[in-house]
């Protein structure tokens, strides 16, 4: 294992890294929890509040259908938003950190 030695604990204490991982953790777990809550509203709502799901929205299309369809768009939305933030913030912070460490 003749790999280049890194001082991992020094990198872990680097302010750039601390900023990166704080931002990432908050974003990732925050949006993950949001997506789970939004998803589980679907089976829970369908089972315990079927009345709401039957309300017609447009023509014969009811709330349940629109809500299930919205799950797809919400998932795609989170994915695109994450890509945007990661490309703009997380990748930039990572690059700056690597530049600073002269790796």
């Amino acid at each position, binding site marked *: 294992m003749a*790999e*280049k030695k*890194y001082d*991992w*604990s020094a*990198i*872990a204490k680097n302010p750039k*890294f601390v900023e*990166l*991982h704080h931002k*990432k953790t908050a974003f*990732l*777990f925050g*949006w*993950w929890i949001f*997506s*789970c809550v939004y*998803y*589980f509203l*679907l*089976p*829970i709502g*369908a*089972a*315990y509040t*079927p009345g709401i*799901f*039957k309300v017609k929205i*447009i*023509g*014969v*299309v*009811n709330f*349940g*259908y629109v809500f*299930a*369809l919205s*799950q*797809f768009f919400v*998932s*795609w939305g*989170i*994915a*695109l938003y*994450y*890509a945007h933030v*990661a*490309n703009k913030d997380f*990748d930039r912070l*990572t690059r700056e*950190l*690597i530049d600073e*460490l002269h*790796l």
Partner: protein
Amino acid sequence: MTMKKIIIAATLALSVAAAAFAEEPSKAAAPGSAPALSAPAGQAAPVVATAQAQTTAPAAAPAPSSGQKRELKTNKVITLSMFSVIIALTLGVVIWAAKQTKTASDFYAAGGGITGTQNGWAIAGDYMSAASFLGISGLISLYGYDGFMYSVGWLVAYITVLLIVAEPCRNAGKYTLGDILSFRTSPKPVRAIAAISTVAVSTFYLTAQMVGAGKLMALLIGIPYKTSIIGVGVLMVGYVVFGGMVATTWVQIIKAGLLMSGAFLLSFLVMAKAGFNPLYFFETIVNSPDIQSHVSILALKDGIILSGVDAGQRFLEPGLYLRNPLDQISLGMALVLGTAGMPHILMRFFTVPTAQAARKSVIIAMFIIGGFYVLTTLLGFGAAINLTPQGIISVDPGGNMATLMLSQQLGADISPILGDLFLAFLCAVAFATILAVVSGLVLAASAAIAHDIYVNVIKDGHADQHEQVKAARITSFVVGACGIVIGIAAEKQNVAHLVALAFAVAASGNLPVVVLSLFWRKFNTAGVISGLVVGTIASIGLVMVSPNMTYPTVVAAGAKKVVIALEKKQAALPAGETLTEKDSKALAKAKTDSTLTGTSMMGLEKPLFTLKNPGIVSIPLGFMAAILGCLAFPSRRSEEMFDEVYVRQNTGIGMAKAVDH
């Protein structure tokens, strides 16, 4: 843009295939000829039936709702030619891939040389099994809204993959689950147990796929069950043994391209019938007399009397199929956490060069998978409108044939030959789907055995590239052969619950330990082992005592009710009349079933655990076991090494070494 690339790639692959055929006819012909040859042998009768169906079909077409009895007959010549094209195309890819597969990194991770876009298509191809392709549209065609609701979880699952596991795994891993988990733990026991868990998950999933493949091929083109399993198995082994990850990836990309083309084509035709007006489309569902009568029969089971437009509207409301909310939540948990713990999905992230590419690939996969499920709604509802639920049930009670029947119907509406062509194309898509999924599973299981157990546990990591690739190829061959044997042995078994079980094991065993390894400083060897063992055993154990198993006394109790109901029906008939053929058959079967006694495989008279999906209990158990195990046996070394794992997984520093190594 991605579509264009796929078309270019497919064209390229086709020409490569043609060249390969010219160069190596013997190599390419061997696996392909097996199914083709066996088909005419035992199947003289269905060919005649096909000819009859062709002549009678146009006559029956104008009045679809009057004759509820339907048939699904493929045109053998067209179907088998399409199959041959797919076999030729994929074998061409394998020959091309085999030349580039020289190192272990090539074999397991395509040398890290897959682009984000390619990987996105491959993930979609790896993930969408025939069950999603045929099963979900079938559920929608018979139960409406619930089928659609069921499909949602399969996409939402990718949020977990995207946000929690994809990039960290790319940064901290190499080829397998064992690589991620053994980073700061005692490598040998951790790799061994991770390999066992990977093989367990892959085997459950593979068995379900193989049995499904055998039954589907037998139904579609009349090839005997065993021959289909062997045919599919030989191709799958061929792809993996010779072409490794490169070939598997391209088989998955081709499959995803075919699947999406098929779904787009059919959705276009369905919407064309509705004048491209979604509101009119939904009104047709509500106003269809066949759907209305189908729903009123379903509603009768709950003692509710519905008719006319109310019954039609009920088709768009929840509760016709998914009747146990806890089971739904439990399945949802297994999907949302299990997908991210599936070894064959995790493995896909080692094929891309950077975390950015891993991110891009999940996002592309999400659009393909989500787009596919949205189109599936159109196919399912379109099948219900155009074929009637009664017609779909007459071919397959589970509705699995709905999409295929729809393709034939919509094609035949334009011209009879087009019906055969569309059906053959969709059958070929189903075939490619099976091949792509099983290859991914065999590769994941072999990587765990060859890389984790053989190279790193038995040989202490001392094996040169040549030996590693050789071990990987031999293991893939053995795993594939076992897959074929299990597939044949499980023909008569009930395997429907195995897919859910695979996801439950991945969610309860693999995911907790992966997440804790990547994000929790104190996590260590004891935690990995207790988490994997408890999560896996809890899921399997709960399924063994769940309603998924067969309970003879429960079956008998149900059959007794049927006997009473049918005898009442018989008594109510006017003198001289007898029950219909279907009813008297059901009565005879119920009478035999009602005498059943005994216990389930586990010696139980009735299920101990009432849910079909164990996730809601086994996932918390897996997490708790992992946390408690690690707190009970703390390890300073694991804690000290956390900085390294954490920096690596967040930044990718030091990653290039892992790829070249």
